[in-house]
């Protein structure tokens, strides 16, 4: 097979399009590059959706934690403690076991049968766990930023007659984002890297549709050679991480555009598995 054929057969293999059978012998570099790159689609899918949904939940949690209602505050505290205090790996296992226990036939709610089987699939189940997990971590970051919004900004907003929602929307929230953004960039990178855990933690790769690390592991297992497949996957992740840093850097610039001499580069300080 030429490399072009390999590409057309396997470029979308991770989402079930193209050749059904994975290569079984005569592995070459081209196959490894194409398949591992194909798996990266899943990592990008999980990261993009989890970050997008998690962003709004995290904002809500941060506001709830800083708010006056004791019930909401306790709930936010508990949620953040639960998801930040336990390993993501265990959360995946726990969620999978819990979702498998749902009745196969579906649950009846108000006379409508809601199907449940899709929840045990990685695309939904793992996504939910990732959303909740990143919500907790981001909420912690946003809460810290919310607490350091300058008092003067709020007083100035009061003086201009801004209150309630419009004050939050136009003053508090942008300032909070601006302060939180460097730390939030780190969180986005951790989350992106954490998506590699999905197919190693209970969620089965249905019909061998897996992520980049799943395919890298496949090749390393078949060829008994970790020195090709893993570096290829690493290269993809480095490129994707650099792109992510670039995108978040642009946002950071925009958030800080009113401040002279501010909004330089976001320094990425790495952290590890959660």
């Amino acid at each position, binding site marked *: 097979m030429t490399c072009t054929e390999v590409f057309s057969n396997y470029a979308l293999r991770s989402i079930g399009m193209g050749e059904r059978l994975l290569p079984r012998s005569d592995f070459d570099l081209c196959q490894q590059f194409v398949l591992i790159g194909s798996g990266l689609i899943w990592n990008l899918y999980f990261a993009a959706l989890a970050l997008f949904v998690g962003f709004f939940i995290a904002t809500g949690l941060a506001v709830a934690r800083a708010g006056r209602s004791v019930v909401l505050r306790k709930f936010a505290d508990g949620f953040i403690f639960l998801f930040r205090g336990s390993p993501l790996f265990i959360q995946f296992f726990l969620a999978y*076991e819990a979702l498998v226990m749902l009745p196969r036939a579906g649950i009846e709610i108000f006379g409508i049968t809601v199907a449940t089987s899709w929840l045990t699939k990685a695309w939904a189940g793992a996504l939910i766990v990732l959303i909740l997990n990143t919500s907790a971590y981001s909420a912690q970051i946003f809460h810290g930023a919310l607490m350091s919004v300058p008092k003067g900004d709020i007083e100035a907003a009061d003086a201009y007659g801004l209150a309630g929602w419009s004050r939050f929307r136009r003053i508090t929230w942008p300032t909070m984002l601006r302060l939180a953004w460097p730390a939030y960039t780190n969180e986005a990178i951790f989350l992106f890297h954490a998506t590699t855990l999905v197919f190693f933690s209970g969620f089965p790769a249905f019909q061998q549709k897996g992520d980049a690390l799943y395919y890298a592991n496949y090749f390393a297992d078949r060829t008994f050679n970790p020195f090709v497949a893993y570096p290829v996957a690493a290269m993809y992740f480095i490129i994707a991480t650099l792109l992510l840093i670039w995108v978040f850097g642009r946002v950071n610039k925009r958030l800080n555009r009113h401040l002279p001499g501010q909004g330089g580069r976001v320094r990425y300080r790495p952290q590890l598995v959660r």
Partner: protein
Amino acid sequence: MLAQCADPASLQGLSWLMCYLTSGKHMMFYASFGTVLLLLAITAPLALAFGFGGALASRSRIAPLRWFGWLYTSMVRGVPDILFFLFVPIAVDQGLEWLRHKALCGGDAPVRQGNDFVVCAAAKLPLSTSPQWVHEVYGFTLAVMAFAIVFGAFAANVLAGAMRAVPRAQLETAEAYGLTQRQISRRILIPQMWTYAIPGLSNLWMILIKATPLLFLLGVEDIVYWARELGGAKTSAFTYPHPDWRLYYFIGILIFYLLMTWGSERIIGRLTRRLSAGQATLAGEALRKGAA
């Protein structure tokens, strides 16, 4: 095992549960919590040492050493750590076997033959004749090595940052007194950097705790392994038949980790308070004012 557990089929309710939870397999499950703690106890100082070496290397005056330090500290930034956990044990294993193959068997035959990694019998690690526990210890050692390398890189990042945070004037003063680079490092830089390093290192400790279930990926019989093993549905062919209880086992593990992180957070809080006492930092100032 308890005497009344001799015939589990005749037991009911609570006494059945008591016997179930004290069965031999469960004892191994409880012991695997010890494995996790052992991993933490070995990895933490080892990673700190690796990190220290990495941080010093990245400040070295010798260019190749500095490049190595830079590479080591930056390798974890763009690449998921799980990739390293999969890569390091098998890479180290094959590296050692290759070296032994070269040394012990003359090493004329290539080690990579098609899709196989072939070394002579004498070069196998551990030898196929060695008892089971040697295999387990070897596997655990490889896991520790993977953890130490990855967390060493993270610690190197933290420590390099802390070394940069030591006020430049301190080092310049030491230079003015005629101290050599080595003396400055030992007497000025390293004693002062700890205050700056503590927040990062304590964060790293929390992350290390939360990374320990990844032992399962490295093939060690850890708590995740036993939870899946014991929790899976057992037919009546087993001594203690039960449906799928994996969920409850994982809830148990979750609580274990929540307790670990909660306890660590409290201890770190106390430690930070003690370390910031008398320091010329905001935290130290707050403590001073609080006491007055």
